[in-house]
């Protein structure tokens, strides 16, 4: 058990910076409300260092709080589809040759009305991203990037047509949880067709965490800072794992 608290300039001083808006006018009462709110979040001390009106009915606060809350660091389980232990491009290709013995087919798309292709392109396009080549460059991968605004039905049909091993879905817009609906729908459609287990199902996007993806019925989720090698490593290992089980 290792107790960890926020750190300002002394161990366990518990210092945290906060800022937020309240739907009340700026002034002494607003500042006091802000302070009390922060205290209600389990902070022991709070100083509202700044307040400013945003309009007649809204006001902005900057505050510093001191908390005694802590967390047992040893009990924290990181759950990100991590770079740790992922193979590089050559590793992945060797792995495929050795354990699968044929080209792995991967289909990707940015689904629903999402038009943010830069993320999925970063994973799939030849040129890749940040000095990590994309899947199209992998000799042992056959990659199809369907681009943006692809309906889930169309994606499934295409995957079936090319006998895909894995489906990659990108969701960037998250407002009003539109991504949750899009992601869940794909799983439902696959399940309705009895095809869910046919694919390694991968979700990705800057606000997508592994946990979230798994909850939604995906095999894995990749957030900010993921590269093709992470994705490919996961996919091929998962395929082999499934073969074995």
């Amino acid at each position, binding site marked *: 058990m290792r107790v960890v608290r926020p750190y300002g300039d002394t161990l366990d001083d518990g210092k945290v910076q906060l*800022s937020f808006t309240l739907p009340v006018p700026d002034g002494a009462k607003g500042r006091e409300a802000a302070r009390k709110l922060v205290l209600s979040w389990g902070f022991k001390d709070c100083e509202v260092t700044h307040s400013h009106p*945003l*309009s007649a009915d809204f006001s902005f606060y900057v505050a510093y709080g001191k908390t005694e809350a802590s967390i047992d660091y040893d009990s924290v389980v990181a759950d990100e589809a991590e770079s740790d232990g992922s193979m590089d491009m050559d590793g992945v290709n060797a792995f495929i040759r050795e354990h699968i013995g044929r080209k792995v087919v991967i289909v990707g798309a940015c689904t629903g*009305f*999402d038009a943010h292709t830069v993320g999925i392109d970063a994973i799939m396009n030849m040129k890749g991203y940040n000095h990590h080549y994309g899947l199209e460059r992998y000799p042992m991968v056959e990659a199809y990037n369907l681009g943006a*605004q692809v309906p889930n039905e169309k994606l499934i049909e295409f995957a079936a047509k090319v006998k895909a091993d894995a489906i990659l879905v990108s969701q960037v*817009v*998250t407002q009003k949880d*539109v991504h949750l609906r899009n992601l869940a729908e794909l799983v439902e459609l696959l399940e309705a067709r009895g095809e869910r287990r046919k694919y390694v199902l991968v979700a990705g996007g*800057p606000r997508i965490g592994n946990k979230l993806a798994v909850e939604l019925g995906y095999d894995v989720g990749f957030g900010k800072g993921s590269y093709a090698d992470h994705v490919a490593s996961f996919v091929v290992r998962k395929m082999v794992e499934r073969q074995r089980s």
Partner: protein
Amino acid sequence: MQNKLHLSAERVAYARRLAEKIAEPVARFIDGHSSMTVERATLRLAGADGANPDGVPVPNLVVDQVRAADPSFLEDGVLLRYVNALVKSGSTVAELNAKIAAGFDVSSLPLGERAAIERKAAELVDRAAERIRGNRERREAKRSEWAGKNNDPLLYLIVATGNIYEDVKQATAAAEQGADVIAVIRTTAQSLLDYVPYGATTEGFGGTYATQENFRIMRAALDEVAERQKRYILLTNYASGLCMPEIAAMGALERLDMMLNDSMYGILFRDINMYRTFVDQKFSRMINAYAGIIINTGEDNYLTTSDAYEKAYTVLASQLLNERFGFQAGLPPKLLGLGHAFEMDPTIRNGFLYELAQAQMAREIFPEHPLKYMPPTKFMSGDIFKGLAMNTMFNFVSKATNQGIHLLGMLTEAIHTPFMMDRFLAVDNAKYVMNNMEGFADDVEFKKGGVVMTRAREVLDQTIAFLEEVGGMGLFDAIERGLFAEVKRPKDGGKGLEGLIKKGPTYWNPFEERLERELGISGAKGGN
């Protein structure tokens, strides 16, 4: 405008001539065509409004009816049948709209006397022209009444709640905080709808539907806050996507002040058919020109998908093309809010100087244009503190180069659509920076042969080379081959091609004629 970069005037003129040459064949194509949305826009100007119980808008019903009756009817222009129905039925525009919404088919009526139709149409044209002129005058009156009260550059803030009534609250607060321009961001994918939804809306993703009612609601709210603030608040929306001209028409009728409107954005970034887009953009721009609406072009988009340092020339090339297509549609320089953006990788050594060069170059090449300058977005991250610093540098460059329309960067750009406090912090930062270095543009010169001058000259050279290449093959082919934004768009691919209409020899559109006459631009008469 000061000339600080000492760009060769001949080279700039040559680049403009290249753009003119490139746009010329496109103009010829455009003049021979109309589209479903051009027709619907015409109907909207004539007064067609409302929707049927399924939400299909009256202008769509009319066009669909006419096409269903006989596809070739559309070659005459849809207005003929709509006005004919008005004349024949003797009802008012509102009455006719209601009937159409209830199921009445205008094409079911035989064509009546041409002269009567033309008289009635002339009346409708006058009425629309008057309303739009009235809007324009009201805007001008208020802007001169409150002259000097707006910030320079204009501070532009977006609202994007998805709900027009929430948008109003956010917009009002933003205006009170100091915004000059409010843009209501559209819901994801509205640009792919081939109709404009009807009525007030409260459900959108990443933005709010552009509807005429929503325009009206926001306009009224902003007028109110403007009266309190004694500062004209400009309203912005998107005349973009599959309904460019219709939205332009709605904006003209509801006194919008700016419109996102680009001659090629739909093609490249929304995969809309290129012929359709070129036709649509012209009519939309004619309406904007007549309404005195500033268009904001979308060059910033090139830099979200391509590298801003490497592909800086695509911005200038697009600005020159947008300018040329704008001129063709009667837009004067002062309504041409050509776009660009502060999108270089923040780790580039001297990135600030390159941004300065690019912005100053735009300023000098387009001296009368109210350039629209976009903030960093692509390299914004979850680190709001770094983001704030980048926005500070961006605000600096904007003021240092006398940009006209300044989109405020949000420190939370990579995280969520703006919170109310994010907007406030953006305004506060811009006001601080711009006041603090206000005289910089006048006070500072660039060293001959230095980084800034050299960079500007290089980008101009690259632009010229690029335009020469495009000119060599023609714009349609260039787009097809992926010369722009690194995407290839087949000529007959993309959305909306089926909505293109070849004008017949008797194509009739008195609104178009009126606009051409008043704007003093060359005729779109007849087919080719």
